[in-house]
């Protein structure tokens, strides 16, 4: 057994003074046995270190992978979107039923007796081409002329007593695709 063997670990840990460390280093370069011990001590140090790390990992609480919250959030978001879509299909948003009357069809006059107080003008809107083209309206790419009928109670236009009660006027408007009024016709 070499005398230097007792200094090998201190040499590995760089704890020896410079001169002594150089001396030990020179010896190690020539001594096979000391080389083997240096390798062994290095291995033992690594193993001990690995054991310490293993103890720490084993006693640490299990960490949740950082992808778990992301995946969970994505899943919840996907579920919410799916529910919204399904709900939209089952319960469609209520839409006013379009009129099937043509532009020239007379609008039944509302009874004044049934509606107390001054009434506001009512408006109906439909496409000119709807009635004539039927289901083909869905195949048309271009916007069509729109006819609007406005029922206007006479009392909304004239002072009280100027017109007999229950008289209504119908205003037929034809709206171009660009929004301009093409035709206005007032009838009773």
């Amino acid at each position: 057994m070499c005398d230097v063997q007792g200094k090998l670990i201190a040499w590995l840990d760089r704890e020896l003074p410079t001169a002594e460390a150089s001396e030990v280093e020179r010896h190690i370069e020539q001594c096979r046995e000391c080389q083997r011990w240096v390798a062994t001590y290095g291995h033992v140090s690594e193993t001990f270190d690995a054991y310490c790390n293993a103890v720490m990992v084993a006693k640490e609480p299990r960490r949740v992978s950082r992808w778990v919250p992301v995946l969970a959030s994505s899943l919840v978001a996907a579920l919410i979107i799916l529910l919204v879509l399904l709900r939209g299909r089952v319960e469609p948003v209520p839409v006013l039923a379009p009129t099937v009357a043509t532009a020239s069809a007379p609008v039944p006059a509302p009874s004044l007796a049934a509606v107390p107080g001054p009434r506001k003008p009512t408006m109906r809107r439909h496409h000119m081409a709807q009635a004539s083209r039927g289901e083909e309206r869905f195949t048309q790419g271009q916007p069509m002329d729109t006819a609007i009928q406005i029922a206007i109670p006479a009392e909304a236009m004239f002072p009280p007593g100027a017109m007999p009660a229950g008289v209504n006027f119908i205003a037929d408007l034809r709206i171009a695709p660009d929004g301009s009024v093409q035709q206005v016709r007032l009838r009773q």
Partner: protein
Amino acid sequence: MSDDSVPLALPLPRLSAGSAGVTKLYRELRRPLLRYLICLGLTCDEAQDVVQDAFVSLQRHLSSGGGQENIRGWLFRVVHNQARNRQTSYDRRFGEELDGGMDFLADSATPEQVLLRKEKLRRVAAAIQLLTECERECLLLRAGGLRYREIGEVLGIATSTVGDTVERAMRKLAEKCNV
């Protein structure tokens, strides 16, 4: 052994309470301190409490103008003493079979490699059981990156004694582990 002043592995700037240097020190030393305490036998929660308390003590130490020589050794000494106060029998747990079946070794390794590693760790655990308390603590502090002088300050023993103890412990492990 060399008793002259050895540079720390971590070049520590002049610290002041609440400075970025303390934050950097916390980031660098938190894990080694936790590992030391857990290997001493403290639970993970206990170890985290002790480390937190140690850095609070460091803030007080710096605020009161305390010395800044060997802050790393100072921190290890503080956590060592706090661990002793919390749990007098902590040393008996180090070297036991690991909890959790060492499943963490299965990451990116073949079954044969996992088996070999497990076997090696079992042998180390058995060898550690044969070490004295002082030998275990010396090796743990050495594994934490402390110099012999710092280990001596933490444990309250001479630097030369640390060298002898480390050498004796390493020899025992080498013989028992068959590495």
